[in-house]
């Protein structure tokens, strides 16, 4: 009897030490002990983001790359320019010196600042999207007792995308810097400026943004994780509709056709995408038109740089917005196809709602670039000789509008084809 009791005790102990608790045939992980809590905590935080998740945030990588590339070129040049000492220059060269310093500051603040701000918005968008799409996994972690802050710490990985983008931008800026320095002084009015490495600039453009974005990721992730566990597990995070929106919606009569209703509701649900589509068309309109004017006002290199940044930035942002809109509505699209809605109606109902923000962004971008260049010519280059008068370039506007429409249509076409090829069965069975 005593032996039997001993054997039972020993079996009990064995179960305890194996870290597994058996309940009516089910196997559950045991409550975390102090030691394995530490271990599991590291694993959980590490498991939240994969390398794929970080590389998928290529929108942030591209934007931070562009921002740091532009800022590094101009700020490094400005810092080196200051080292030659303005007081040693003759008065006519002094004006050029001042204009170059002012241009550098303005471009860095406007481009760098705007792009970094956009990166921050995009970062929040990625985290929100991640929480929406990984609700079950995060819900399980919360249900198991992991504190929000520890889970949110895993989101700091998103800050790495800033490190990748800004690091690459900084490096490429240094590669192209000799050419840029030569272009800034083609007339040879200024003495030769030697390229120097400025650790403070590296810290301000690469290290500090990475740290700030890591912290921002954790804070925003923490804020998003305040959702109740059950809502995360049931996927209710993305389907919650604010009461005011509901009231407004219910006050209206359902007189609109279904496709129109869907288009409106999709746009309303994805406000961040409205911003990104508007931003993409803003960037495209302003930078493309600006590049036409830059050739005369500055140099072909500057024009090419602005042109490339404009095209890459707007294409990436537009592509990202479209991908997110389609992914978020993948099941809706599958259902619509199952019910027999034509492919064009399907893609139009999901993506057609962004036409208005695109038009507004384009108009704002056009006005912005015109105002910026006009101001630059009027004030910054006021005392510099031989600067041509800046006029609104109508052919550039038409060309930009046509090329942007073509880009927008190509992206829509790509996604209509993708929708056409979707397997309704796989989507319905959750095998997306």
């Amino acid at each position, binding site marked *: 009897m005593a032996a039997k009791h001993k054997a039972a005790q020993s079996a009990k102990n064995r179960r305890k030490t194996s870290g597994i608790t058996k309940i009516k045939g089910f196997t559950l992980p045991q409550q975390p002990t102090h030691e394995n809590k530490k271990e599991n905590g590291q694993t959980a935080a590490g498991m939240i983001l994969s390398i794929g998740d970080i590389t998928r945030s290529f929108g942030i990588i591209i934007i931070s790359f562009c921002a740091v590339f532009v800022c590094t070129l101009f700020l490094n040049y400005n810092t080196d320019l200051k080292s030659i000492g303005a007081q040693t220059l003759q008065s006519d060269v002094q004006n050029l010196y001042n204009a170059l310093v002012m241009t550098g500051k303005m471009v860095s603040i406007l481009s760098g600042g705007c792009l970094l701000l956009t990166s921050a918005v995009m970062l929040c968008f990625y985290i929100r999207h991640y929480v929406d799409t990984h609700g079950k996994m995060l819900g399980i972690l919360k249900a198991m007792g992991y504190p929000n802050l520890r889970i949110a710490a895993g989101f700091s990985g998103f800050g790495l995308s800033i490190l990748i983008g800004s690091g690459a931008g900084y490096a490429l800026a240094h590669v192209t810097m000799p050419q840029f320095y030569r272009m800034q002084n083609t007339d040879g009015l200024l003495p030769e400026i030697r390229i120097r490495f400025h650790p403070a600039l590296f810290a301000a453009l690469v290290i500090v943004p990475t740290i700030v974005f890591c912290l921002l990721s954790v804070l925003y992730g923490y804020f998003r994780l305040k959702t109740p566990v059950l809502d995360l597990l049931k996927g*209710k995070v*993305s*389907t*919650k*509709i604010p009461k005011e929106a*509901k009231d407004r*919606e*219910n006050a209206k009569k*359902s007189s609109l*056709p*279904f*496709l129109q*209703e*869907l288009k409106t*509701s*999709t746009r*309303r*649900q994805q406000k961040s995408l409205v911003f990104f589509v508007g931003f993409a068309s803003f960037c495209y309109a302003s930078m493309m038109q600006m590049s036409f004017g830059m050739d005369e006002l500055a140099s072909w290199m500057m024009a090419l740089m602005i042109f490339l940044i404009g095209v890459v930035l707007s294409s990436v942002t537009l592509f990202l917005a479209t991908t997110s809109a389609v992914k978020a509505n993948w*099941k*809706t699209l599958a*259902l*619509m*196809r*199952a*019910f*027999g*809605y*034509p*492919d064009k109606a399907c893609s139009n109902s999901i993506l057609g709602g962004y036409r208005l923000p695109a038009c507004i962004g384009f108009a704002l971008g056009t006005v912005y670039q015109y105002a910026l260049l006009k101001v630059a010519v009027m004030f910054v280059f006021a005392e510099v000789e031989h600067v041509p008068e800046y006029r609104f370039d109508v052919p550039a506007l038409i060309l930009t509008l046509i090329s942007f429409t073509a880009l927008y249509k190509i992206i829509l076409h790509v996604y209509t084809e993708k929708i*056409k090829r979707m*397997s*309704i*069965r796989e989507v*319905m069975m959750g095998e997306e």
Partner: protein
Amino acid sequence: MIKIEDIHKSYGSQDNRTEVLKGISLTVGDGDCIVVLGASGSGKSTLLNVVSGLEYPDSGKILYDGTNIAALSDNERTKFRREKTAFIFQQYYLLPHLNVEKNVKMGADLAKNHDYIAAIAAVGLSEKRRKYPHELSGGEQQRVAVARALAKKPDVLFLDEPTGALDETTGRQVLDYISRLQKELNFTVIMVTHNTNIADMAKTVIRMNSGKVVDIWQNETQKTAYEIGW
């Protein structure tokens, strides 16, 4: 009338190919209620997908009043689904950002049915037509899916495990709505389920195993949703 002739369907690459349907032949009369029974992996859902025009078979014919939908182009099949069929799925698949009324409009607009409010009333949800899917119970959500499908005025209604996510009471309620509306509107029902009790509601029962039809029988009398076991 639907005539299915020697349907074959496989999935996977050449090395890892699995034949899911192995030569299925059936005839379904207009206004019939067919229940397809079978264990998980028997091929019943694949049969439903192929017959409803969601997927192409590898070979064989699916004739709807003489038209072979297996030979139609993708656009033609979309048109076929738009005009002839409706679906009810186990997971409801309601559009989360639209209220009940607008979800039902999704089906109604395709049939140019302006009286979609009647479809909502038919499933007893008039009071909740302004509610959003997440504000409804599972049974209510499935009733919205029923209303959405019927507002489309289909000739054939396909149901894939419609009570799979519901408890007994709500499951019976949903089946009762479907069966009463089928009798009233006389559309054809093809339902896939693993619940053998539901077979008692059907006129024709098909049992599948390993991609083949192993048994077909006709019920002399069809029970109501409240008379069957659960």
